[in-house]
């Protein structure tokens, strides 16, 4: 390494908001990089809201028979926490990373439909703001993030909260569907010359599969939300227990809801498949198996929704069918875990913050997958459903899985987006605090669930161990909250004084690292020839390119 070379700043970068037209320029932007950043900022805004909500809940649950929150407030908080984190934090984060990275990774200068891209972002943001407006108009929705009828019917939920839930989610859902359409067309038609489907980075593959999942899953949710809204506003009978069918809501919701789990899991699999090889200094192991298992998961995802409904009395044949399908998903997911592990095997691994999160993902997500298996088994599900075991499971999947990968991706791609690296020192402190806080909070909730503590109840009696376990869980939650402050501080200071990154700080192999950091408004003037999944490796190693070894 020649230390004398000073890395030049990007020629233009993105426009600053401090100039005269800066803010207006951002609001009216159709550039995928600006929209990607605005997606991430949208997610950050709602992350602060959803995080505050859960901190209030953890204060309430610190001690038995607490009266810090009223039951009414608690119901609104857990509903808004779940809805926010899933629809307004994790989805915009993953879609935002995709909007920023996918065109760069396939050597394109923008998405296929830039204006539609902007439409998608603003629908997501305004849908979320409408959902939050409910706090000012008589109270937030309070029937849980999956909003079961008849509890969410107007005679049991008479505040306007559920109406805001329906309208807000339909609007963000429209933005999500249009975003997915944009991904599909972009990835299918705008790849750099020579980039066959089998040369695409796996993150791009996973965004493509996720886009198909969105196109298939969201219409079912929108149909259900429309019917619920018509029930509430026009007094229709769809989900009325006497003249309609409450169970139909559960079918429609979970026909969306289970694919949604993979919508939040496949892009993380993609992020892992970028981060793990680069920091293991080895090509990904089993490219085709990773892609194939992603497709298999997507197909199976549409056939397992009723495992959320084992407790409703569907009968043994139906239960058995859905139990089998759910167990089957363990196979392609297991293939991925082996792929990442074997990518690391024998490599020279760099354990920086991105890699720490990536490797921890493999462990935490596997725990979440195993606790998920216990819900695929019908008798266990009957015992554990609606307890804190479910809460622990969902958080191991969405935090230990999705959020860990987001942090890995953030530390990996931050230099590309901003031109500066995040501080490794602060990053390691953040990782340590978050890792300990997360596991402390949620591993104990498995035990609470087995002991029989029901979820979604604002307080609990002073039974043996309940108080101590909940106190420890709350302490873990506060440690996680504090770790987020370290992350925000890291981002804030690194944006100003972070180490300059240069075009390719990690010596990575995919096309986004070919352009400057941050990329100029026009991403590429030209891209190198793509003859394998690692075009930058081929460019730097003409004596030993990847394409010589395959086919």
């Amino acid at each position: 390494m020649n230390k004398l070379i000073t890395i030049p700043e990007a020629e233009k970068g993105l426009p600053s908001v401090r100039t005269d037209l800066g803010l207006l320029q951002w609001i009216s932007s159709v550039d995928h990089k600006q929209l990607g950043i605005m997606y991430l900022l949208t997610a950050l805004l709602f992350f602060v809201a959803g995080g505050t909500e859960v901190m209030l809940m953890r204060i309430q649950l610190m001690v038995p028979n607490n009266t810090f929150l009223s039951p009414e407030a608690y119901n609104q908080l857990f509903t808004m926490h779940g809805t926010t984190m899933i629809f307004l934090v994790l989805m915009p984060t993953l879609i935002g990373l995709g909007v920023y990275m996918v065109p760069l990774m396939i050597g394109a200068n923008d998405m296929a439909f830039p204006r539609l891209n902007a439409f998608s972002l603003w629908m997501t943001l305004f849908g979320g703001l409408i959902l939050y407006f409910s706090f000012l108009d008589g109270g937030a929705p309070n029937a849980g993030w999956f909003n079961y009828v008849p509890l969410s019917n107007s005679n049991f939920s008479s505040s306007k909260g559920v109406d805001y839930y329906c309208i807000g989610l339909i609007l963000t859902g429209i933005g999500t569907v249009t975003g997915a359409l944009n991904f599909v067309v972009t990835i299918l038609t705008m790849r750099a010359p020579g980039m066959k489907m089998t040369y695409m980075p796996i993150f791009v593959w996973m965004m493509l599969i996720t886009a198909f999942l969105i196109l298939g899953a969201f219409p079912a949710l929108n149909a259900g939300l429309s019917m619920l809204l018509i029930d509430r506003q026009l007094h229709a009978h769809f989900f009325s227990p006497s003249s309609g069918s409450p169970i139909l809501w559960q079918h429609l919701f979970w026909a969306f809801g289970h694919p949604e789990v993979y919508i939040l899991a496949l892009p993380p699999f993609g992020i892992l498949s970028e981060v793990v090889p680069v920091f293991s200094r080895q090509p990904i192991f089993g490219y085709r198996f990773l892609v194939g298992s992603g497709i298999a998961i997507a197909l199976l995802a549409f056939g397992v929704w009723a495992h959320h409904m084992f407790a409703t009395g569907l009968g043994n044949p139906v239960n058995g069918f859905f139990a089998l399908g759910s167990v089957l998903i363990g196979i392609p997911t297991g293939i991925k875990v082996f792929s990442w592990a074997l990518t690391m095997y024998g490599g020279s691994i760099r354990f920086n913050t991105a890699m720490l999160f990536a490797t921890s993902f493999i462990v935490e997500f596997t725990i979440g997958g195993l606790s998920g298996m216990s819900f695929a088994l019908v008798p266990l599900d009957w015992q554990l459903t609606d307890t804190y075991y479910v809460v622990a499971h969902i958080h191991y999947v969405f935090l230990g899985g999705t959020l860990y990968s987001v942090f890995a991706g953030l530390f990996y791609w931050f230099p590309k987006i901003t031109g500066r690296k995040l501080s490794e020192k602060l990053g390691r402190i953040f990782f340590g605090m978050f890792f300990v806080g997360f596991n402390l909070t949620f591993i104990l909730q498995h035990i609470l669930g087995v002991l029989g503590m029901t979820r979604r109840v604002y307080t609990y009696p002073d039974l043996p161990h309940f108080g101590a376990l909940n106190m420890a869980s709350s302490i873990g939650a506060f440690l996680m909250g504090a770790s987020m402050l370290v992350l925000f501080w890291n981002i804030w200071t690194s944006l100003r004084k972070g180490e300059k990154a240069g075009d390719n700080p990690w010596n990575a192999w995919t096309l986004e690292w070919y352009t400057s950091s941050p990329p100029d408004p026009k991403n590429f003037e030209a891209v190198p020839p793509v003859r394998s999944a690692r075009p930058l490796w081929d460019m730097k190693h003409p004596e030993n390119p990847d394409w010589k070894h395959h086919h």
Partner: protein
Amino acid sequence: MKTMQTKLLMKFFIASEAIFFISLIISYIYYRHLSDVISITDNHLDATSTGIFTVFLLASSGTIWWGRRGLHQGKPKTLALGLAITIVLGAIFLYGQGREYAHLIQDDITIDRNIFGSAFFTLTGFHALHVLTGLVILCIILGLTLAGDYQGTDSAGVASAEIYWHFVDAVWIIVFTVIYLIPLL
């Protein structure tokens, strides 16, 4: 390239919309099996009249195809005529839907009356909304055609509008079969 991309976008969009309608159609069928309410109340439907109006909608798929073929052959006037006829046929269909609605409401069958009203008005209402959206799109394209916007032989807007209109048509064939024809069997 742009035409190909836009057509691809529209095809995936209608695939997604199809799942929305499939959700509503399955719900309708499910409710019909759940109780006798639908099979009793749907006697109030006028299959003959709606069948005639259905023919108008089906014909409009042919006229938009004819108009777009005109553009292919470099005849924007044919496109304008095809679009105008399509819009009239679509509007006649919507008028027929309005007549059916008025007739049902006169019989005191409304969306809040029973599960038939809820399922019928929601399913056909969402379809009518799609027809109306299509009419707005076609009116815009007709305006652009008359303003001389389409000089070439191909247009992303015209091509994708045609795909959308065929979709609205195809959905109605299924909705009409499920709501009107199957009970007659």
